[in-house]
């Protein structure tokens, strides 16, 4: 019974995570400019790995694999924003202007 609950929970996490990956992809296609595309893609970057690795953790149980999975998640969550930051500031430095609504054109 307990096993079944863990399995169901694990698959719920895996499928929700995958759904967010797909949504991130759709968003990256639909958004109008680079920065807004990055916002959409950051769903794939942050929430999706948390959910997917959370699901895999439930599959792995208390083993060495879990420790490795947690380490992978930690590295993803630390390197993801760093890469996004590098991309965003490269775009900013090269003079790429964000498309804004009317109120603040900075």
């Amino acid at each position, binding site marked *: 019974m307990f096993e079944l609950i863990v399995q169901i929970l694990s698959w719920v996490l895996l499928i929700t995570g995958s759904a967010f990956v797909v949504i991130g992809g759709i968003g990256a296609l639909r958004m109008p400019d680079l920065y*807004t595309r990055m916002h959409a893609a*950051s769903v794939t970057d*942050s929430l999706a790995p*948390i959910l997917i690795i959370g699901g895999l953790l439930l599959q792995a149980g208390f083993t060495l694999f879990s*420790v490795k999975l947690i380490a992978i998640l930690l590295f993803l969550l630390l390197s993801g924003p760093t890469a996004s930051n590098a991309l*965003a*500031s490269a775009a900013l430095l090269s003079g790429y202007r*964000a498309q804004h*609504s009317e109120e603040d054109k900075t």
Partner: protein
Amino acid sequence: MPPLPDAQPRPEPTLAMNFERTPTLARTVSLSLLLAATWLVWSGLYKPLLLALGAFSCAITIMLIRRMRFFDEETYPLHFSWRLVRFWLWLGKEIWSSSIEVARVVLHPNLPISPRTITIESPSRHNFDQVMLGNSITLTPGTLTLDVYDGKLKVHTLTDEGAKALLSGEMASKVTTLRRSS
């Protein structure tokens, strides 16, 4: 061991190996042990070749870190506090709610975005605060740190609501509480 006080002029880093003896020995040793333990536990294979490769990787890592003068900073990588765990839980909640929001915007037929670029004040000029705040902002979907300068952060947000939430300064105040315990 206390870190070097900032007032002392630091020698320019050179390309040659520049091992300082004073503040870093204990830290070097403890980090070496930590690296070695990590390698042993994670590889799980105890063949001579792999052990030698592990020792080699640890030595290279230590050398690089010493050359980067990582040990001279007041942030020591082994600092850990429960505040950090609490912050991560809070950040997880933020990531969840803003992911839902971004997903809603993405899947909405009209794509109701209202992008803004705002400038917020960093709680302090401390490296740790700025990195923590900048990365937390980027990690949260719908907000993206573009630039950090003069204790200010330039942030691009997908929606007006996201910009208002950041301007309220909640995340900045959470970040400032992190460093007090150390």
